[in-house]
């Protein structure tokens, strides 16, 4: 049970009232002050347009003047951690890093990822060790750009760092991004690979752990 506190007088914050003297009530000086403000904005901005001195809306965002982005002539670059369209990363040999583990499609709350895993052909060193996505489809119209697929991926195979926002199309089919398209995208630095090393079966660095050779 809470103990009742002793009642205290409520002390309001004193708000200064504007003076209602003759100058204020005649409106004229106040209107002149207001016109001074609006005129300053008008002339500064007109000069910027007329002399092509417009502020860079991103770099000079806090300066006086026109700080708006004239889309689409100007665009603000997305921040580094922006989640844009997905891409599938490549291995050194150009095949997808994805091992079709279905972690991303499982994690996806919008259920927009569809993967059909496929086995490597007999004789391939990776057969029996991992699979690859025979089909990898993302419905970008369903995607809510939460980034859970990127978090879930154990192989750093899917990323959302293309720097492209979801593109508008005129038909639903065009939002279905398949493996080839997802693999054609690059990161914002232009690369299609990642710094994280992969250790392919047969390489010296390969730990040698697979379905047939346990630790």
């Amino acid at each position, binding site marked *: 049970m809470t103990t009742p506190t002793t009642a205290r007088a409520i002390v309001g914050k004193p708000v200064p009232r504007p003076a209602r003297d003759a100058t204020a009530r005649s409106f004229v000086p106040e209107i002149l002050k207001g016109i001074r403000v609006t005129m300053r904005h008008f002339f500064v*901005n007109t000069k910027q*347009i007329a002399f092509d001195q417009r502020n*860079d809306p991103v*770099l000079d965002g806090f300066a006086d003047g026109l700080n708006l*982005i*004239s889309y689409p*002539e100007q*665009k603000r670059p*997305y*921040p580094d951690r922006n989640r844009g369209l997905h891409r599938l990363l490549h291995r050194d040999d150009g095949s997808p890093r994805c091992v079709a583990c279905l972690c991303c499609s499982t994690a996806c709350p919008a259920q927009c990822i569809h993967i059909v895993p496929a086995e490597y052909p007999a004789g391939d060193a990776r057969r029996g060790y991992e699979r690859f996505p025979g089909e990898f489809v993302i419905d970008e119209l369903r995607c809510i750009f939460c980034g859970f697929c990127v978090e879930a991926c154990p192989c750093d195979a899917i990323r959302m760092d293309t720097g492209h926002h979801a593109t508008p199309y005129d038909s639903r089919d065009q939002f279905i991004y398949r493996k080839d398209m997802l693999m054609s995208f690059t990161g914002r630095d232009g690369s299609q690979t990642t710094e994280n090393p992969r250790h392919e079966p047969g390489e010296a660095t390969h730990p040698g752990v697979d379905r047939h050779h346990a630790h």
Partner: protein
Amino acid sequence: MDSVSFVFALLKIALILGFLVTLTAVLTWVERRQCALIQDRVGPNRAVVYVPGLALKLLAGGGGLGLGAALAAAGMALREHPKAMVVCFAAAAVVALAGVVGAVRVPSGTVGIRLAGMLHPVADGIKFITKEDFVPPNGDRLLHALGPIIALFPALVTLAVVPFGDTLAVQLGAGGNLWSRLAHGRIGWADSLRHYHAAVPRFGMPTLSPDLLPVPLQIVDLDVGILYIFALAGTGIIGAAVAGWSSDNKYALLGGLRAASQMVSYEVAMGLSLVGAFMISSSLRLDDIVRWQSEHTWGIFVQPFAFVLFLATAVAEQKRTPFDAPEGESEIVAGYFLEYSGMKFSMFMMGEYMELIVSSALLVTIFLGGYAIPFVHRDGITLAFGDRVLWQAALPHVALVALSVLVFFGKLLAVCFLQLFIRWTVPRFRYDQVMRLGWRRLLPAALVNMMLTGAALIAVDHASAGIDQALRIAADVCNAVVVLGFAYGGVAFVRFLASRPKPQQELLSTSAQRAHAQGGAHTSPMQA
């Protein structure tokens, strides 16, 4: 009326109407653009006409070279006058060069012409003409159609009595008729007007001699002058009221009532605020008022109080912010033109802007010297304080009249511009506040101003002889203040244009860092 005066009258009507309609269209653009710039936006610039770049190149190059060739030919024709020939050749070179440079600078491919957004009024016009002309099914068809006409008409005709320039005197020569002299190419501006100063007095109307035709730059010079304006402007109320009544809509009716009561209320204070100015110039004719100001000083210095009153009541008469009680989205939607669409709606808007131009013209004529320029009279520039003449320079008559016309239209544009600023600066009044301000503040203030002016006039009439000279010097000091104010404003403006503050860059976000690495967010050519 003889044929000469008739032709001049037609020319003047064409000039004023053309100016009025053009300025109305331009003002709709200025208003939107200005409000955008005040709010740090770019404003309308998306209306665009795409033209092949090649056509523009040909137009610029061909036009420049053609005009240059014509000027060069004119220069060759003026071989006897070396100065004129040199001027013609220089102009030809400049025009041709500008054409060629322009042609080179036009980008190839399709070029979008935007004219800084000036195409928006054109697009608006196309839209208004092609839109459905909706009449409420239970409305009054006739009155619904009459409303905008009644509202627009007074705005169109009131400029007729406003003088837009000093009286132009055309010397016809002894016994000559203008047409016969024109036919013989002997109208002789240069030689006749050089001797003009002797023929006309410095002040007052030019004398009517048989060889001198005075052309007042005013469509009609009525003795009732300003009363004509008030009488016609009063009929505009009927337009708003009729529009509200005939629309069969409660909001429109309320808006019409508000408009009617507001305009009636403010018309009283508006008329009374000008009485002081009439008393001082002892005339209702606007031309006399301007001449009084030309001889003494601008009306704003003798009637500063009336200037404020008139400006406030004029804004209220136009039903523009802060007095836009007749329309209000949150209360009565669009007010009396709620049920109007297409060209009828645009007639209301045109009427509003024309009223703005007319009230600006009145403000200029009565308080800001009209077409008069301080220290400039019919005989040229006379810099004098009282009887002490400091400096004098004669100017040709045509140049002075042209200057007076330019000055009048310049002042008019400046006051229009200021009125637009008032709209974007001052928050609106509530309806009861509008009424209270009109009847309980502005009307008594106008009456007090009238009485004080009368008392001051009587006092001056009964004062000693020395006061006249003192007032004259005071008037010239006021003129000097105007000149110095303009000089100071000009210098300040040039300094403002030359200044270029370097903004402090803040690279706090990764997008700003990325933009910085790219060299800014500019990606493709900016539009005005």
